């Protein structure tokens, strides 16, 4: 029995125990017990994933679970990677949840759903056949929907968010079902390996193969949150409890990316060029649109939700480029791009988990998610601030975090990729580079805004004044996430090598100082030395600064400089809305803000203004332009369909008769 065999069984057993405990335990002990069991199960999944990543084989077959086919869980190396990601995220989220969950999100149902949600996310990449894949995938969808609903009695918007989520996620599921059904019909088997073999021999058949590819892509893209299938993301993430959002964003969106990578490397190797180009186009659109919406969002969790779309977009770009480059014969850069995609997935999981947990901690302490009403939290919540700032650094792809390393690898793939003869590639590369660069720039602004407005300067509302640091489990989870983020950034080489192993990418080496050497494109990165250099230089500056601090101590004053004004209040500070105002103007055509300014004047004189109100609303443009009309059409059709159902039993029986006749007619033909 290998480690993976054992791990899978342990994982399932612990999770099952967790669900039972969550349902049975007394309310005051529920969080600690169920949370601990969930964390242990996630840890078991993490270890299993790491073992599978290292090449250990193992399988768990449940032959009696379903009448049709046995369910098989057997993670390969790629699956192990995503299993490990989900395990890590789940571990931190469960730990955080112990301290965080309160009110409706700490009910027996919620905890049971959470404990069941974690393994379903982890087992998607472990599934070895179509039936178990779809089963686990659906379990993931249902448990997350239940979790999302936790707070529906208190906030009406939860219901609307859940409706969007449920519809989108099930449409995605249907697409997957249809796509897999076509492949299964072609191959006659249900395991992924059989499917891959069938695709290999039927490649020339055209139509069906392309159709299945498109359907699967739609299903996975919806889960990854790619534009235009992202609409559930910015709604669901703010409304879910924060530890759930962390898993949904850090790990569940990752399963969508896993699916896309699965298509490209295992299920249908050498996908057609249109697929790669579509992926790059979807990726560029998602990255730019996601980060643009994130940069103008004021709800911190909505901001993070859109940022997930952005990061999925970056991964899609990397994957698409990898396929394009391989088709062009540029295997070196292609491998680098593929590794970049996976590294982005790892780093995204690390920083997004940290950020969502940090946001949860802020919500926990202040009850506010609106950045415009936060501020000055740094002295009150130093640990949360530290973790959130490090997460922000990762999301902005700055050194030394895993985010920086993975983006650097992507950039190297792009600039070395355009050397071949392919003209399409030659034009796509600079476009992709420009899109990645603009995305990175806007991500920087977004994160400076989120961190700066929430934690620096003075508080903008009373909610901030009473804020206190989160309890120990939450702080531990946040800091652990931030620590992993930095650690992976420093140990860039080992990370890249480990990731490269899962897709057999060649020419990715680690140096003796944990640096990264891309032999395939002859480029190197040494985060340890870079950090060392910066630290030496910082010491060079800080030395004299400390010396001077002794010789001439600083003087404290009560107020920042406000032009000598007598009344300066925190309301004069820049808010998140004002921070993004220049961007709203620059990208006005893409964002289409609606603004109105209402001026109230006194009765006595027209020119004496009593009050000026400014209101700005930024809706999701894609939703407005694409989904609203669709919704209207659906509603109208539904209205018409109502005539069919009038409650008369006779009419229903007539329908049955008509259906029977139709079937008989069809069969006899």
């Amino acid at each position, binding site marked *: 029995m290998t480690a993976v065999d054992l791990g899978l069984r342990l994982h399932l057993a612990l999770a099952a125990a967790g669900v039972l405990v969550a349902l049975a335990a007394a309310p005051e002990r529920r969080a600690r017990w169920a949370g601990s069991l969930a964390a242990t199960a996630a840890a078991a999944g993490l270890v299993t994933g790491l073992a599978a990543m290292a090449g250990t084989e193992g399988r768990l077959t449940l032959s009696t679970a379903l009448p049709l086919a046995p369910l098989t869980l057997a993670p390969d190396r790629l699956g192990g990677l995503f299993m490990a990601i989900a395990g890590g995220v789940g571990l931190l989220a469960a730990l955080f949840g112990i301290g965080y969950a309160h009110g409706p999100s700490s009910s027996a149902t919620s905890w049971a759903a959470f404990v069941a949600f974690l393994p379903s996310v982890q087992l998607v990449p472990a599934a070895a056949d179509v039936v178990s894949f779809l089963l686990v995938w659906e379990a993931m969808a249902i448990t997350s929907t239940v979790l999302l609903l936790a707070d529906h009695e208190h906030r009406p918007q939860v219901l609307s968010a859940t409706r969007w989520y449920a519809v989108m996620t099930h449409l995605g599921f249907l697409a997957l079902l249809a796509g897999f059904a076509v492949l299964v019909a072609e191959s006659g088997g249900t395991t992924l390996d059989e499917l891959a073999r069938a695709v290999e021999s039927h490649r020339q058949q055209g139509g069906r193969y392309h159709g299945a590819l498109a359907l699967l892509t739609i299903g996975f893209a919806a889960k990854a949150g790619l534009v235009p299938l992202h609409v559930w993301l910015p709604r669901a993430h703010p409304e879910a409890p924060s530890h759930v959002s962390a898993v949904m964003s850090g790990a569940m969106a990752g399963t969508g990316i896993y699916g896309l990578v699965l298509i490209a490397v295992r299920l249908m190797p050498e996908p057609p060029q249109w697929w790669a180009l579509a992926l790059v186009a979807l990726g560029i659109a998602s990255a730019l649109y996601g980060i643009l919406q994130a940069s103008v969002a004021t709800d911190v969790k909505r901001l993070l939700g859109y940022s997930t779309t952005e990061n999925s977009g970056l991964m899609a770009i990397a994957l698409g480029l990898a396929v394009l480059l391989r088709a062009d014969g540029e295997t070196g850069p292609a491998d680098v791009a593929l590794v970049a995609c996976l590294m982005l997935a790892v780093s995204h999981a690390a920083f997004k988990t940290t950020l969502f947990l940090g946001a949860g901690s802020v919500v926990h302490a202040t009850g506010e998610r609106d950045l415009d009403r936060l501020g000055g939290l740094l002295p009150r919540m130093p640990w949360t601030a530290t973790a959130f700032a490090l997460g922000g650094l990762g999301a902005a792809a700055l050194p030394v975090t895993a985010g920086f390393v993975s983006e650097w690898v992507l950039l190297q793939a792009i600039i070395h990729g355009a050397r071949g003869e392919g003209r399409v590639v030659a*034009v796509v590369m600079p476009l992709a580079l420009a899109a990645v660069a603009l995305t990175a720039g806007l991500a920087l602004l977004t994160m400076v805004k989120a961190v700066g407005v929430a934690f620096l300067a003075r508080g903008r509302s009373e909610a901030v004044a009473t804020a206190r640091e989160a309890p120990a489990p939450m702080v531990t989870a946040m800091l652990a996430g931030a620590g992993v983020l930095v650690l992976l950034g420093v140990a860039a080489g080992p990370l890249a090598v480990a990731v490269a192993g899962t897709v057999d990418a060649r020419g990715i080496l680690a140096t003796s100082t944990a640096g990264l050497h891309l032999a395939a494109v002859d480029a190197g990165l040494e985060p340890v030395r870079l950090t060392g250099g910066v630290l030496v230089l910082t010491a060079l500056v800080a030395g004299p600064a400390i010396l001077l601090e002794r010789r001439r101590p600083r003087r404290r004053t009560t107020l920042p400089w406000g032009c000598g004004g007598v009344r300066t209040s925190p309301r004069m500070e820049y808010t998140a809305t004002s921070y993004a105002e220049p961007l709203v103007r620059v990208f006005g*055509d893409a964002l289409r803000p609606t603004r109105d300014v209402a001026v109230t004047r006194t009765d006595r004189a027209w020119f004496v203004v009593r009050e000026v109100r400014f209101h700005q609303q930024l809706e999701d443009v894609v939703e407005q332009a694409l989904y609203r009309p669709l919704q209207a059409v659906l509603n109208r059709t539904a209205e018409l369909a109502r005539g069919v159902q009038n409650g008369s039993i006779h009419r229903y029986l007539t329908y049955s008769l008509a259906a029977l006749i139709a079937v008989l007619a069809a069969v006899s033909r």
Partner: protein
Amino acid sequence: MPATTYAQLVGTAAGVLLLSAVLVVWRRSLIAAVRLLALQGVALAVLVAVMALHAGEGALLLVAVLVLVLKAVVLPGAVRRAMQLAAGEREEAPLLNPTAALLACVALAGLAYVVSAPLVEIGDDPALRVVPVGVSLVLIGLLTIASRRRAMSQLIGFVMMDNGIATVALLTAGGVPLVVELGVSLDVLLVVLILAVLTTRMRSVFGDTDLDELRELREE
């Protein structure tokens, strides 16, 4: 002329051609646009001259001189003259804002690069590699015509398109027959003159050369 110098000269001339086209889109000032047009004419003439020297064809050198006279002096001169007639209009107020227009230029240049692949592959002359520049000029010229309000800018876009066609023809056919090139250029000159006259008329009728005003001429 050594092959590398030849390739480099051709490349430089092509770079200037493309750059001047992009600068026309970037700048709002019409005077600057006319100057850039003259620069473009010079670059085209240099391109022809370089090819003539490389091939050692005297006739092509004559074409170069003609191109210089026509595209660097006469055509910009005619456009400038038209502008003086429509005095006071020095700033373009484009339909498409310059940021978007510039990004569109970038996209068009990329498109030109992709679609001109078959033209590039008809021979191994280094000059053929710059055919995409000619195609981009045509596309950017069309973009200018489509996205600008002033009649003057339309003239400029039209001349840019002509330059682009001339570039492509020159590079692929190793020099258009002299007569054809002359004929085309004279056609363009004629169009410019007609448009100039029209512009003046428009101005005296509407007091403006905003082409959107032409909509009012439609019978309803």
